[in-house]
Structure formats: structure tokens, C-alpha cells
């Protein structure tokens, strides 16, 4: 038997199929502010400590700026100068002289500038993040805590954190990130989705991950949802073998189709124009979900119609005539917007979010639709545009009216709420297509918060009730002869993709990194087999039984290469 240290295996929920071995790089949370800290006994000592912390943080940020390039280097350089700002230092010293603990003095001094910047709005309001990172770093240094945030990666590493905010994930140097392991979170949280999209193996909800130490070698297996500490040569060899087999699949470029030629379009989910530009040479038939909220998040004011039109036009041009499905702003719940969403909703997931924002901020949607119409005219492209979180026929009709008035020719709605799935036939009478968002559909069908990692079993897209609603929606599409797509993460599960194809879903949109495995699985099964697999899924009583029944009908080689179990 091996030693405890050599055999320790942590479990969580995996995102993606990849596996990798590499050293741990810990990302640390921002230290909490505590306003009730006692006054320092020695003012001179407190002032010296604050001075030292501000200087040290400035020097460290300057060093990071020197190692970076382009915009990141500029932002880090400016942030370094903020930490060394004489006025900030004077404010901190004045706070300490008035009897504040150094941590409290730093917190207040930064808060003063945060207020100034926020009040100015626009570009300055966005720089508040930089001010906060100065505050977090200085406070951590004063308290002797590790540097908060994502560390500067000097070699390819497995990033391990308690949790990562979307902003932290966006700050990652992707060339150096081998995998992401989070103690918290579920597989449909936004960091997991972003990681999946970028093809970075990710395991979330890993109990014990926070205890992993910097530099420890770990084997991360996203397909199995495991993190193995100090892997032996055998594990390293198997990880290398899987990487080779998956790399082979990644080279296939045929359009998505079953073994008998029945087409199932394989599309990509993207969040930015840059994501779309990365697809220019990719073997996908288009974009099935362009999440436009990235353009709106973290800002003090909404982007203008011109600014939006530029971004949409870039994305449309990048796809060069391929299908692009754009989802209008999906803010609220876990994606709050400073200028639109309400604070203090008791149940934000059930509140004013998605298309419902039209009730309080119709201009936001009108501006966005106008920008999409303008981008279509500029590029000659013909985007499909859909609204998120539609629950009723009236909402679908309202959206269709607004979108068509803006010159959009293919109008659709997301099916994410059970009421929309149950009445999909009625919705399809108002719009040209629907797209199933299986993550939210599972959340609302199972009354389970997407962000609660401990309830991940209830969010399983294999839950029979969720499958029933998907089947109902697909049938409504066949009856109306209008396309039904799936753009939730379940489209990225090769076994589920076979079920969806069997149910009559015409397009599957997923993280680009998931496409090769789904293409491979579809190509190895006829439409008839897919229908048989779909019947097996619908006939099961539990999520576990549904997946097992389907898996038993999947071809052996597909199971083996894709590590389906």
C-alpha cells in the first residue's frame, strides 16, 4: 500500500474531458475588512507598518507589470502607482493619527477614492477594481496573509482556490493555466463555464482543495472529477495517453452528423468578440450562444449603441456568414449590473432578471436590439437573436415585436423556465426558434440554486423531470417544424448529446473545447440508435438510472476514448 500522502485523492464535479498533471498555484481570497479593530498602541509603529505595506505592494505590482505586456502591463503599472500615491499615503497616515488601526485606515482611505471614482462614472468607475486590489493587497500584507487574488504564474500550473470570482478568472494568464480546482462552486457556476469554454480542465466543489499547498504536484482529471495528490508514474502515463487520444479527436473537422448522415449542427458558446474571433479557423458550424452580458458586467453605465454595434459586428464578421445566435442581456441573479439590476432582492434568481429587465429598463433592450440590427447591416450577416428567461407567450410576443422592429429576421427565445417548456408549442407560434438552456431549466425545475455546490445532484441534467421538459420542447419544435437547439452545458456531454439528437434537437451549442468529443460520439451512432437511447433515458426513474441506461447503449470505443465510465 502506498503512503497516505502519495495516494490522497480529492473528489468534485469535473468540467470538460481533459486531464493534466502539474504543480499547484494557490489563489487567495481578499481579506475581510473589520471596522472594529482597536486603535494601535504605538502610532509611529502603525504608520511605519502602513508605509511599508503600501510601498511593498507598489513594488510587487511594478514587478508584475514589468513581466506583463500590453493592456495588462498598463493596468498593473497604473495600479502600482496608486499604491505608492502620496495622497493615499497622507490619508492613511491621517487616519492612523486619528486613532484608526492601520487596516481600517487603509480601508477608509481607499474607500474615499472608490467613492470619487464611482461618482465620476464611466471609465473611472471601472478602475475601482484596481483600487480594491490595492486595498486587498495592502490589508493582506499588514495582516501577514498571503497575497490575495490569482498569483503571477511563472510556469504552467494548476490554479487552486476556495472560489474564483468571474473577474479573477478573467485575470488569469491562460497560457500558464493547466487546470482549475475550486473548493466551492458547482459545474454550472460561471468560472466552471468559462474554464470549460477555454478547454481548461476544471474540477469544482472539491472538498479539501483549500488545503493543497503551492508547488504540490497533482493530477487533475476533469472526466472523473478527481484531483490526485502526488501522482505516480502510472497515473502520469495514463494522463499523457488520454491527452494524445483527445488531441486526435480535436483534429476532426466534419460537420456534426449521426452515422447515417442525419445532421445535428455543432455550435460554440462565446462570451466576447475575442472568443468569436478565435473561432474563425475552428471546426464549428457557428455560434449557438453569444452571451452578451460580458459587455455589460463590471461597468458603471451601459455600453452605448455604437460601442455594442462594434463588438457585435466584430463577432459576426469573425464567423463569416456562419450561423450566430445572440442572446440579449441576461443580467440579474448571479450577474448583477450596477445600472440595471435591483439590489436587495430576496430571491434574485426568481426576480427581475433576463428578459424581465424590460419591465424596468426597456431602453437597455431597445438599444441592444438596435445595435444588433446595425451590426447586421454593417456586416451583411443575418444574426439569430433570442431573449433569456422568457416564461410566457406574452413575453415571447413582446420580444418578437421589439426584435423584428429592430430589423432582426430570426427571432427566438430561450426555454429555461418550466412554464416555457410546458407551453413550447405556443411560444413557437410567436417566434422562429427556441433554444434550451439546460442549466437554468434544471435550476428552476428542481428548485435548486445553481450556485449551491452541495446540491449539485439535484441540478443533474439527467433528472427525469428535466429530461421530460426537454423532450416536450423538442417535440413542439418537430410539430411546428421550427428549430430547437440546446445551449446549456448538457450539450457538451457526449452521452446526453446522443439523447438530444434522438429527441429531435437540431443543434447543440457548447464550449468549443467540447465539440470534438460530441462530434465523435454522434458520428458513431445512427439517428435510430439515438432515438433508442433517448427512449431509454425517458424510461428511467432516476438521474443515475437514466445515464446508466443510455451509457449501456453507447458504442464501446466511444466509451473508452471519452472515459465515459
Amino acid at each position, binding site marked *: 500500500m502506498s503512503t497516505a500522502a502519495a495516494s490522497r485523492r480529492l473528489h468534485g464535479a469535473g468540467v470538460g474531458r481533459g486531464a493534466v498533471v502539474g504543480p499547484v498555484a494557490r489563489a487567495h481570497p481578499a481579506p475581510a475588512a473589520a471596522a472594529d479593530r482597536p486603535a494601535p498602541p504605538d502610532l509611529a509603529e502603525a504608520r511605519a507598518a502602513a508605509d511599508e505595506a503600501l510601498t511593498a505592494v507598489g513594488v510587487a505590482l511594478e514587478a508584475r507589470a514589468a513581466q506583463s505586456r500590453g493592456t495588462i502591463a498598463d493596468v498593473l503599472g*497604473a495600479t502600482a502607482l496608486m499604491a505608492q500615491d502620496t495622497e493615499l499615503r497622507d490619508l492613511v497616515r491621517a487616519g492612523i493619527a486619528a486613532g484608526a488601526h492601520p487596516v481600517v485606515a487603509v480601508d477608509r482611505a481607499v474607500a474615499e477614492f472608490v467613492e*470619487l471614482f464611482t461618482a465620476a462614472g464611466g471609465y473611472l468607475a471601472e478602475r475601482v477594481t484596481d483600487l480594491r486590489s490595492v486595498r486587498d493587497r495592502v490589508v493582506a500584507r499588514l495582516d501577514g496573509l498571503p497575497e490575495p487574488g490569482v498569483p503571477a504564474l511563472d510556469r504552467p500550473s494548476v490554479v487552486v482556490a476556495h472560489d474564483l470570482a468571474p473577474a479573477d478568472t478573467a485575470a488569469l494568464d491562460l497560457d500558464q493555466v493547466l487546470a482549475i480546482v475550486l473548493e466551492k462552486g458547482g459545474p454550472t457556476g460561471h468560472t466552471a463555464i468559462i474554464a470549460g469554454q477555454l478547454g481548461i480542465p476544471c474540477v469544482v466543489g472539491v472538498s479539501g482543495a483549500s488545503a493543497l499547498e503551492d508547488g504540490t504536484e497533482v493530477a487533475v482529471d476533469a472526466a472523473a472529477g478527481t484531483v490526485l495528490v502526488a501522482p505516480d508514474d502510472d497515473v502520469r502515463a495514463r494522463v499523457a495517453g488520454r491527452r494524445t487520444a483527445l488531441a486526435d479527436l480535436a483534429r476532426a473537422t466534419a460537420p456534426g452528423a449521426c452515422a447515417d448522415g442525419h445532421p445535428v449542427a455543432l455550435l460554440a458558446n462565446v462570451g466576447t468578440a475575442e472568443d468569436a474571433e478565435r473561432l474563425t479557423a475552428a471546426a464549428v458550424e457557428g455560434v449557438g450562444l453569444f452571451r452578451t452580458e460580458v459587455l455589460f458586467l463590471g461597468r458603471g453605465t451601459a455600453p452605448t449603441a455604437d460601442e455594442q454595434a462594434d463588438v457585435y459586428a466584430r463577432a459576426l464578421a469573425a464567423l463569416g456568414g456562419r450561423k450566430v445566435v445572440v442572446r440579449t442581456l441576461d443580467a440579474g441573479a448571479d450577474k448583477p449590473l450596477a445600472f440595471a439590476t435591483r439590489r436587495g432582492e430576496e430571491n434574485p434568481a426568481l426576480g427581475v432578471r433576463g428578459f424581465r429587465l424590460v419591465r424596468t429598463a426597456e431602453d437597455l433592450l431597445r438599444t441592444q436590439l438596435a445595435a444588433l440590427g446595425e451590426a447586421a447591416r454593417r456586416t451583411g450577416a443575418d444574426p439569430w437573436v433570442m431573449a433569456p428567461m422568457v416564461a410566457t407567450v406574452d413575453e415571447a410576443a413582446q420580444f418578437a415585436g421589439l426584435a423584428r422592429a429592430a430589423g432582426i429576421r430570426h427571432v427566438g427565445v430561450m426555454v429555461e423556465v418550466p412554464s416555457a417548456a410546458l407551453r413550447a408549442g405556443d411560444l413557437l407560434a410567436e417566434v422562429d426558434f427556441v433554444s434550451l438552456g439546460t442549466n437554468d431549466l434544471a435550476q428552476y425545475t428542481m428548485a435548486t440554486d445553481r450556485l449551491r455546490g452541495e446540491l449539485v445532484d439535484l441540478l443533474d441534467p439527467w433528472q427525469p423531470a428535466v429530461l421530460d421538459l426537454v423532450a416536450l420542447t423538442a417535440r413542439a419544435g418537430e410539430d411546428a417544424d421550427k428549430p430547437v437547439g440546446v445551449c446549456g452545458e448538457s450539450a457538451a456531454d457526449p452521452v446526453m448529446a446522443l439523447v438530444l439528437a434522438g429527441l429531435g434537437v437540431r443543434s447543440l451549442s457548447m464550449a468549443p473545447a467540447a465539440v470534438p468529443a460530441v462530434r465523435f460520439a454522434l458520428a458513431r451512432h445512427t439517428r435510430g440508435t439515438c432515438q433508442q437511447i433517448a427512449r431509454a433515458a425517458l424510461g428511467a426513474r432516476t438521474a443515475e438510472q437514466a445515464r446508466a441506461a443510455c451509457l449501456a447503449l453507447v458504442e464501446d470505443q466511444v466509451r473508452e476514448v471519452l472515459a465515459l465510465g
Partner: protein
Amino acid sequence: MAQRTVAVGSQVGLHARPAKLFAQAAAASGLPVRIARAGGPDVDASSILRVMALGVKQGEEVTLTAEGDGADDALDSLVALLAADLDAVGQA
């Protein structure tokens, strides 16, 4: 006391990179340089936070003041810096 008024040339206004370059240059002059928007209070030009908080946009005029030996020369070079498009400096 030396004084100059200049329109800011940087496309994004006096933010991030331009603000950093300007505040660094003001500090390097070794003189107490102040900067103000038209009709507004003046602030320490060597403080990137104060300079950014002014929220000066492209084309907007700012007034610089300084006292001491070499104040005129120092302001001349700071004015040249503000008038240039600092976003473009050093970028291909």
C-alpha cells in the same frame, strides 16, 4: 508662479496610462506642480489618484501651476506631454 493651460491630447483622456506617465513626470520634476480643470480646484499633479479623479477627457483644457527654480521649463515639458497622445506612446 509659472502657469500653463493645455488641451489634453490622449484619446481616452487623462486616465490609466496617460495619467500614470503624467503623474510620474510631475513627481520627477521635483517641484510642487498642481493641476486643475477649468474653474475647478487644483490638485497635486504627482498623485495619480487625484489626477485620474479629475476625469479629464480628450480635448479638455487643464491648467498647470508650479513654483520654484526651473518651474517654467518643468511646465513646458509637462504641457508637451499632456498635448501628445500618450496612448500611442511606445505602442506599435
